[in-house]
């Protein structure tokens, strides 16, 4: 009966949390926004999201096969990347955009740098930026929700260069619900917030990161708009701020490991986003801000190393 006693290092019990569970929670958290995208943009959304996920998973499987590595598609992280990228695309993009984007995200940004946990940028976001730079026209032609998608502008382009909301701009309530132009998953602040609350509740992310990011943008908008509350709301419910703050600035691999570092990271994202939106050449700055802060993450991490219990440096 005692032939096979396991002798191993402590501890002898482990938590039930796994990488798969974390990734599944992110997928579940993105479901409201995904369903919203399907409702607002119909079949086109289904096609883009499907291609994006399918390409991400097959790219991961393929590159690991080629490099003779054990496959990690079962941990669901490729699905998360594919889904996030899909939700970041306009409903009007042709079929090859999500395919190229997902393949780039997985092969170049994620796997070449060592796979899960090693990518220094958020793969989905890096792919979105790459696509935007390469096919600017196709990536920035937005359509309004509905069956007969007509081309439209995003809410942020209405207020570019202004510190008030113009007459013809979308209503804030429509922006909150998602009844506006924009990429598939970023239009409805409400659905993204529901997903975010789920992640906080499940302990996958800390509420502090999105809160600091969004509050910073809100603060800048308040100052810029001379304390016009609706101008501030307009800014926080528009563009990629919600999806960026909740799902991208909270990415584990490309943000600092310490909570202090993550808060500085979020603050930096908020500042850069605001500067680009209010003073830069582009209407939107969430994507660039997160990527720029991704690059600063190792530095922030280095300078936010926790103080060891019982004093500072140990070289006594």
């Amino acid at each position: 009966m005692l032939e096979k006693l396991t002798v191993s290092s402590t501890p002898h019990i482990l938590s039930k949390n796994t990488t798969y569970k974390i990734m599944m929670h992110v997928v579940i958290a993105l479901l409201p926004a995904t369903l919203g995208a399907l409702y607002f943009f119909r079949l086109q959304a289904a096609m883009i999201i499907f291609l994006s996920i399918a390409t991400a998973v097959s790219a991961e499987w393929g590159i690991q096969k080629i490099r003779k590595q054990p496959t990690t598609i079962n941990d669901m992280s490729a699905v998360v990347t594919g889904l996030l990228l899909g939700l970041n695309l306009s409903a009007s993009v042709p079929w090859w955009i999500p395919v190229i984007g997902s393949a780039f995200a997985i092969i170049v940004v994620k796997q070449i740098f060592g796979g899960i946990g090693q990518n220094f940028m958020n793969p989905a976001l890096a792919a979105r930026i790459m696509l935007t730079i390469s096919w600017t026209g196709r990536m920035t032609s937005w359509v309004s929700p509905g069956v007969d998608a007509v081309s439209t502008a995003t809410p942020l382009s209405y207020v570019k260069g202004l510190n008030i909301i113009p007459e013809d701009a979308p209503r804030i309530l429509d922006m909150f619900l998602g009844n506006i132009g924009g990429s598939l998953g970023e239009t409805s602040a409400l659905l993204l917030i529901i997903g975010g609350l789920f992640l906080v509740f499940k302990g996958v992310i800390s509420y502090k990161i999105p809160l600091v990011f969004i509050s910073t943008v809100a603060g800048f908008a308040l100052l810029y708009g001379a304390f016009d509350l609706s101008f501030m709301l307009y800014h926080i419910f528009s563009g990629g701020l919600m999806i960026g703050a909740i799902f991208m600035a909270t990415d584990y691999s490309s943000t600092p490991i310490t909570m202090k570092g993550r808060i500085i990271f979020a603050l930096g994202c908020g500042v850069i986003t605001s500067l680009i939106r209010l003073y830069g050449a582009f209407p939107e700055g969430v994507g660039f801000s997160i990527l720029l802060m991704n690059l600063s993450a190792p530095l922030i991490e280095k300078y936010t190393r926790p103080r060891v219990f019982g004093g500072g440096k140990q070289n006594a």
Partner: protein
Amino acid sequence: MKHLTFRGGIHPPYSKELTAHLETEKANDPSSVAIPISQHIGAPCNPIVKVGDRVLVGEKIGEASGFVSSPIHASVSGTVKAIKDVPSVMSGEVLSIIIESDGKNEIHPSVISNGEIETLSSKEIIEIIKEAGIVGMGGATFPTHVKLSPPPDKKINTFILNGAECEPYLTDDHRLMLEEPDDIVYGLRAMMKAINVEKAFIGIEDNKKDAIEAMIKATAEYDNIKVVTCETKYPQGSEKQLIYACVKKEVPSGKLPMDVGVVVNNVGTAAQVAKTIKTGMPLIERITTISGSAVKTPRNLLLKIGVPIKEVIEQCGGYIDDVGKIIMGGPMMGLAQHTDEVVITKGSSGIVVLNTKEAKAQQESQCIRCGTCVEQCPSFIEPLHISLYSRYNAMDLAEEYSAVDCIECGTCSFGCPAKIPLLQAIRVAKQHIIAKRRKQN
């Protein structure tokens, strides 16, 4: 009221309900015992009996070989059959004195009451504790008389009694606090007198409400002894974390509790001190929790030192299921055994037997940098970095990241979603660094 605690930590499944309600029972008398010469931190003791000698209960059979050492005593009366190596709970083998019991449990004449706290001087109390072979009974097994003899430049002002019992499964301290609260307080007062401190805390996790009540009642007449309710959180019973919870002081890195004027002892140790003073009986038995999914009837047993755990488990109905792992101590910090021929020692707070399913090693995957280990580490170090440096043999970097401040509680490995054996790697680095420093000095 918000309960006192520390920063970091985890909430593992406690599994204490298996034995928490079960009264401590006296185990069957063993037919023979094997008493190891090293059951404590410090130098092993020297056997002072020969094969063939007749020994009595409480008779000293091994003499301490230095200041940081501890004597051992016969736990049964009978004949010394052999002095030989037997499997040790600490890994490898250890020289042990094998005594065949004559079943009479005849008590040695040296076992007589030492009097009362009031009539004993502090020196006498320390001497009694030393001679009785009392060591930290929470599992650390550091000789108690050494803890009570700080260098003269260290002024001790606070005594903390550890009744946190944060290890899952274990309920021996819990039962002791319910069943012998007065002994615990008596032993505490003796140790306070020994080291001349006025103030004491007894730290207990709030999942042991009845024990807290019992201890409050037992300390009612002593204004200087305060029962502290701590949050139920692992590793609350870790010395440094308990000190922080009670007096809000951090023991400086690389230093000892005495450097912040505190001495910590386990409630089990205190109860043993009381027994030794009152009856003169040295440390020859202790309460052990026998629990886990692969034990038929989990119990709290009063066991003689030197009983093979195989016999102990038989008294608990034997094994059920496929036995995957036998742990001496709790599942977070206890040691996995390769055989059930090891014996109960002074530090055996528990025997936890897990089935093969629970014992199965989990597949490790790549770190996803979720930050859980950093967030939960009670030492505020960064386990993911240190373990990586350790595995790539970058020990100077591991040292720079304060690997030696690790208290080896296992919180990081427990919480890791990628199932990385973080602590195992950190321990390698820690040993490497300590060995290097020793060489330099």
